[in-house]
């Protein structure tokens, strides 16, 4: 089993520079501390095992990519982190999956707090059928922020962070559904940022986008790095190599290899990993 604590850090100053002031508290000071740590974590859909005995720790402020063949449990693992899988009847978790040191599958876990800390961006852009403004305000309003000035401030900050501000600043009150797919996805990212999470989970955020929109989102991830801990599932290995600090390779529900991205792609220690990244898989 890898011990991520031993992996040398690759700090990017750019990430810190782009960190928005108001979310400064989201950044954990001891950036070497694990924000997410799984110990012997398994997840079952009824009798079927989606994630099998995974142990890994994810550093605060890092970008972690999860790769692996289809159906290997990447989404399952990701969605376990903020317990989005709870919705599925008959699902069940085993082992420990901790965020900021608290086991999320503890009975006492407050789901609302957890999900405010751990935001999620989905594969398909899913903005609400509301205005751009209201989409972003959804989270803050839930947190009880009512003041118009404060909300406008948040909207602008989040849109700027999501690199969408310049494109939509004139029609904030237009429906979010009138945006293009790439813009919608960035809006969803902005919406997630507006709840001031520590961790942002992204499940194939670029799979529905064209190369230009993909590039913008990758830029965005690079900018957010440091301020947020980002876990991204992707099928695009170039993307994983480009955006991530660390990479985890899953296969058949098991974590096969977890290492620095450079290392994993240039010098994988496992045979399966090598087969997969060189395209000889299956």
């Amino acid at each position, binding site marked *: 089993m890898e011990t991520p604590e031993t992996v040398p850090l690759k700090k990017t100053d750019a990430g810190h520079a782009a960190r928005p002031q108001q979310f400064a508290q989201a950044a954990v000071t001891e950036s070497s501390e694990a924000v997410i740590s799984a110990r012997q974590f398994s997840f079952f859909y009824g009798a079927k095992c989606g994630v099998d005995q995974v142990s890994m720790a994810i550093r605060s402020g890092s970008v972690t990519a999860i790769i692996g063949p289809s159906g290997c449990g990447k989404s399952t693992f990701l969605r376990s982190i903020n317990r989005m899988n709870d919705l599925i009847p008959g699902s069940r978790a085993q082992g420990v999956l901790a965020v900021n040191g608290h086991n999320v599958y503890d009975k006492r876990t407050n789901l609302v707090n957890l999900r405010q800390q751990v935001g999620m961006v989905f594969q*398909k852009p899913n903005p609400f*059928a509301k205005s751009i403004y209201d989409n972003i305000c959804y989270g803050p309003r839930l947190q009880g922020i009512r003041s118009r000035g404060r909300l406008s401030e948040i909207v602008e900050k989040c849109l700027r962070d999501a690199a969408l501000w310049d494109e939509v600043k004139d029609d904030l009150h237009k429906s979010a559904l009138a945006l293009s797919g790439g813009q919608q996805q960035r809006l969803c990212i902005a919406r997630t940022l507006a709840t001031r999470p520590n961790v942002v989970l992204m499940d194939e955020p670029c799979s529905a986008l064209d190369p230009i929109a993909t590039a913008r989102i990758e830029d965005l991830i690079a900018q957010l790095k440091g301020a947020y801990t980002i876990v991204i599932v992707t099928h695009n290995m170039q993307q994983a190599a480009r955006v991530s600090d660390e990479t985890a390779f899953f296969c058949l529900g098991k974590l096969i290899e977890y290492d620095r991205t450079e290392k994993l792609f240039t010098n994988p220690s496992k045979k399966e990993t090598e087969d997969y990244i060189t395209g000889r898989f299956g």
Partner: protein
Amino acid sequence: MKTLLRQIQDKGFTTASAGAVLLIAAALLVVLIPMFGRGITAVIFTETVEFRRLQKDLHGRGDNEHLARALADAAAVREPIYTMLREFSEGIDTEPLVKQARDVYQKYGEYLNYHNTPKEQYSDYRKQAKDVRDGLVDALESDDRQTVLDDLDAVLKEKDNPAFADSPAMEFFAMAQRYKKIAETVDLSHRAEYLTNLQEVTAAIRQLLGPLPGEPTPPLWMDQYGATRLDMALKARAALLYDEQWISDGPGKPMVKHIIARKEQFAGTPLEPLFDRVEADWDKLLQPRLRIYWQYFFDDWVNSHYFGGVGPEILGTLLLTLMSMCVAIPLGVISAAYLVEYAGDTVWIKIIRMCINTLAGVPSIVYGLFGLAFFVVTIGAIGKPCILAASLTLSILVLPVIIRASEEAIRAVPQTYREASLALGAGKFRTLVLVTLPAAGPGILTGIILSLSRAAGETAPILFTGVVAMGPIPNFGSPSQWLENPGSLFGWLFQPTRALSYGSYDIAVGDRISMLAPHQQFGMAMTLILLTVALNVAAILIRSRLSRKLRGC
């Protein structure tokens, strides 16, 4: 080859489905167009001067001066008709004349007393007057022209008798003179026949022009006016001008309808010119002209819908429908949300679902009886049929429809919407209220539209629970009453009401109104359809706005 087959299949399916849609549309039109065509005549029709008079008397509508002029015009051409009728009927229907002759005799006796006539002279004069009277009565009661003329001549001979000079008895001779003129023209041997025909003619004229002059005012409004609409007037005119008789050509032969012109029936009599006059002066008699009686939708009825409109019925239907929706929509949507979002897939939930599906198919009369037993009888607070009981019954009727439609709509909301909301830290309830229900809005509204029409049109559920055929209009009270007693704001909930659906039924099965005034029946059915359409259009507009918003346009 294969593609050709596929193309044919495709084309065939398209044609068949388009045909099916067209067929349904055609069937709808076949039903609706005649319904509307006849219903609209309750609102747009050719009125007569009688209708204007009615509107003036009932509601004070219309210009006084105009109406007075129109009535004067009409009276000018009606007068000769009445005179002809009166003169002729004096010859035929002699009973009033006989009575008059007896009255004259009596008056003569009083006259003699008054003038202190000496005793012998008195009895002599009385005897002479009695002879004259008997002669006159004989003449009046005889069917033979010669006898009549002889009797009248004998009476008229006494004209210069000094005993009668300047006395009321002179009236005998005036009567004899008048009747002689009639006896010379009218074939008295057919008097019985004339008498029945005359009664029919008089009835037709009453239908056409209202009560004859000198007749006492009838108690019902409907009898106080002639034909108020051209279609009714034409019917009365046909009865006036033509006699319809069923005559068998011989024993055992079937009866055949014969149409006989009244003009021929009364040929040679003083009544003959009447029929030509009616035709010639037709426009002046009734002064028909187009009327758009929009007040139909606001007026109350008069004489069980013989006159008037459907205002209270519309109000009642609206109250019942909207009230039942106020109850059914929240209940239905909450139940649907619970079933989809909260309830597991347990046996109990399955049973509940099955019950809801079964309820959707229960005949509406069963709901009516349930409403009677539960809301009216069992719940003491309601205690009698009223709007509240009726709308609660209706709401139970439409609840399954709303629940099922809402369930489908909520289920159809993409899971990603819920996930997006949950991932932002919203709880289950917030997600439901802020995201799922708005997204399901159009689907829920579809269920509401379906149930609106059903609630507005149902008769059986409200039959025993709060609807009446005739009764007061729901009384909402006044602001001052509300201030005094806030409870009175809801007083109307505990009053019965009229409704379009039940009104249509009542006219149809009730009494002769559906025959006398068919426009009223069709008018009410049309109003019900229009009201349902209006409610639906409103709901559809809301739905399209909502779904446009959801699509982001």
